[in-house]
């Protein structure tokens, strides 16, 4: 499939020149095209922030909701129509800060969605404050003495919660990022892809060069089915590993567990309440509760 089916034509894009978001947008189009996922068969769900504007630059169904609230909406959308591919995509502040509680519980719920997080370790849209993933000592107009909160480690948290697919990518390597995204989208169940990207305007600490120097790919010998090994790699600090940390292919999804699709595969919009059964239920109140 041609990735240009997702092109919007001439549009005004709100991202800064040189922003990592452009790279992610481009890689995502190629990923979806290679997986033959059409705009009609995809729903992009996002929150608020610069990364969360991505559905506007992309031809597809989309639900651009509230700051931090993409995951509950994405979960319900998938549950209401399991045949459509659902991607929940936003930035590190949105997914890990404002939406931190939903991040944790969505992993527990395990809907078959892909969670892509643009991680530039800073707030862009609100102009340069610390994000949950900002490094210690990072100075901002609010964190004037430098960040002293322990950085949020989404990879370790996701593995701790036994998320079915946990990976990290760096947008400086488009080809590898695409391969990781393809596997994440194909994975049945919740998948997390945290993508390192530079913020050229507000993060002078974690630059493109910094990411190059502070990351490396997990070796081929890393066994992603070994949860303990995955966790050890997730808490490495000097150099941050990239690639697929962890896969658990044996988890049932939220849509499986809600219990209404086993016999009837139709999405909710095709269904009508069973009034004969409802009459029986009402009549039960004649004798018992």
């Amino acid at each position: 499939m041609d990735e240009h089916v997702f092109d919007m034509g001439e549009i005004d894009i709100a991202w800064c020149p040189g922003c990592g978001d452009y790279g992610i947008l481009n890689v995502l189009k190629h990923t979806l095209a290679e997986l033959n996922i059409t705009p009609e068969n995809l729903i992009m769900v996002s929150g608020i922030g610069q990364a969360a504007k991505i559905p506007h630059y992309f031809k597809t169904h989309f639900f651009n909701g509230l700051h931090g609230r993409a995951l509950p909406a994405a979960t319900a959308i998938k549950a209401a129509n399991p045949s459509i591919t659902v991607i929940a995509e936003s930035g590190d502040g949105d997914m890990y800060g404002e939406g931190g509680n939903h991040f944790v519980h969505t992993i527990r719920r395990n809907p078959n969605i892909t969670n892509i997080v643009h991680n530039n370790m800073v707030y862009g849209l609100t102009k340069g404050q610390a994000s949950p993933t900002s490094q210690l000592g990072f100075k901002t107009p609010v964190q004037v003495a430098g960040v002293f909160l322990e950085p949020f480690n989404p990879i370790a948290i996701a593995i701790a919660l036994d998320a079915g697919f946990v990976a990290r990518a760096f947008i400086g390597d488009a080809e590898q990022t695409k391969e990781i995204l393809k596997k994440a989208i194909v994975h049945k169940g919740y998948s997390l892809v945290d993508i390192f990207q530079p913020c050229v305007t507000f993060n002078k600490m974690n630059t493109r060069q910094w990411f190059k120097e502070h990351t490396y790919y997990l070796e081929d010998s890393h066994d992603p089915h070994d949860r303990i090994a995955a966790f050890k790699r997730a808490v490495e600090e000097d150099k941050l590993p990239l690639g697929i940390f962890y896969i658990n292919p044996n988890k049932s999804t939220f849509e499986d567990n809600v219990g209404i699709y086993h016999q009837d595969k139709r999405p909710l919009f095709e269904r009508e309440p069973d009034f004969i059964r409802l009459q029986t239920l009402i009549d039960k109140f004649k004798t018992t509760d």
Partner: protein
Amino acid sequence: MSQKIDGISIVLCGQAGMGIQTVEGILTRMLKLAGYNVFATKEYMSRVRGGNNSTQIRVSSQPISAFLNRIDLLIPLNKGAVQHLHDRISKETIVLGETEFVGDEATGGHFKFIEAPFIKIATDIGDKVYSNVVAVGMLAGLLGMELNNVCDYVRHFFSTKSADVMQNNIRAAEAGFQLAGNLTGQVKIDFNLKPDSAVKNHILLTGGDAVGLGAIAGGCNFVSSYPMSPSTPVLVFLAKNGRDFGIITEQAEDEIAAINMAIGAWYAGARAMVTTSGGGFALMTEGLSLAGMLEMPIVVHIAQRPGPATGLPTRTEQADLELALYAGHGEFPRILLCPGTIEQAFYLTARAFNLADKYQVPVFILTDQYFIDTYYNTKGFDLSNVKVEKHIAKTASDYKRYELTTSGISPRGVPGFSRGLVCVDSDEHDTEGHITEDLQIRTKMVNKRLQKLESAKAEIVEPEFYPNRRYDNLIVCWGSTYNIVKETLAVLDRPDTSLLHYSQVYPLHPQTVDYLIQAKRVIVVEGNATGQFAKLIKLHTGIDVKDRILKYSGLSFAVEEVAEALNKVLK
């Protein structure tokens, strides 16, 4: 009071976990099956064990559906029951039970005490746990029921238990029934109850059950909520029955997730609702505003309880009308429904889904603890009066989600249903759903969203008059106070006074002003401290209703209380 209220008022009082619910559950259903009208309501403390909780059971030859202060028969199930109900006990009250639970007051003359040794009888049968069923048997005997009907129902009630347990419960019921025979000389109450065979075929259910059944009838197939008293019974009802009806029921991590899930579900074509109380809804207000901006339907059930903050978790109030009315940042339309009867709860909840879908606005069902936990027999629901109206549009490839129309309503597409891409955005957006900062589009979009309220005014639920439309004095109420004020009027003997009950408070019915100016005097009755509905009436009609009967102690109005207050106002 000019007329004695028909029937008998029985109150059971004991600790949480002591089996009041068992006595109540068996007695009310047994009586209903025998053709008696029954009503039950409970007040309880916010705890799992202990405390003092009470249940009122009214039995009558006439339909009854309101809380009475009066107690004819009190069955104390622990010490402290008499003190707990002190204000409601009179010299006419007969207290039937263990001497040890009544204490010194038994001989004080404040009430008539008759010893009924439930525990001894139960212990003789095998375990004091059967004492509740001894009480059931005794009450059934006093009320003139047939012994074999009593035993049949007890057998039915315990049908899932072991043969031993069932047999002992039947023996307990028989022993209680026999006790009643011995007591009839002492318990001088003229019950004078006449069964009505039509009642046998009635349904007996709580307000919470009716909201749950109404949701199913409205095509609800997605519920996401966080447990919170007193709204939880609706969530439990839908969870229990959900899989039979293809309903996804999810307990969210918090109310914020709950409402965002429900909105996402509607986007994908579901018919979703959330059920919560005031504090939980406070967390949902950001999501409510999202529904306003996305023009996504949503049904919100709020079972009110006293606030602010945690307030009184298991008590009742009507103080979240303004919260529901003004919740959410920015300006967007909404509809507020507030059932006053079990029937209204069923039909209005079903209707809420159609209204939400049609106008793409939040629709509220406002109930309260009293309403959710109260039950009485009523005729069954007629499903031929209910229709699931879906407003999902067929779309073409050039579909625009927010196309400008004269009604303000844009055809709502659903992903996967037809060709058009469905793009929605919490930012201000253009007709295609894309983010915009074009301020001319902004103005058009605000106008479009608000226009939907004007469109929704075409089908406002008519307020109901009782007993008729000729009056000097008009009492105005909304929501759960309906049956209480209605019974008050039935016993007050004031042909110059009528009731006007609103089961939709917003948008307010346009004839409100005509109805009010016809009256020489208007009195608002509502369960809050500031007269929230009276303020709403003033805002929309300019009429300042100064006579207000308000209650905010945490307990529902009682019939006698409203009667006394009305007598004072009307002189």
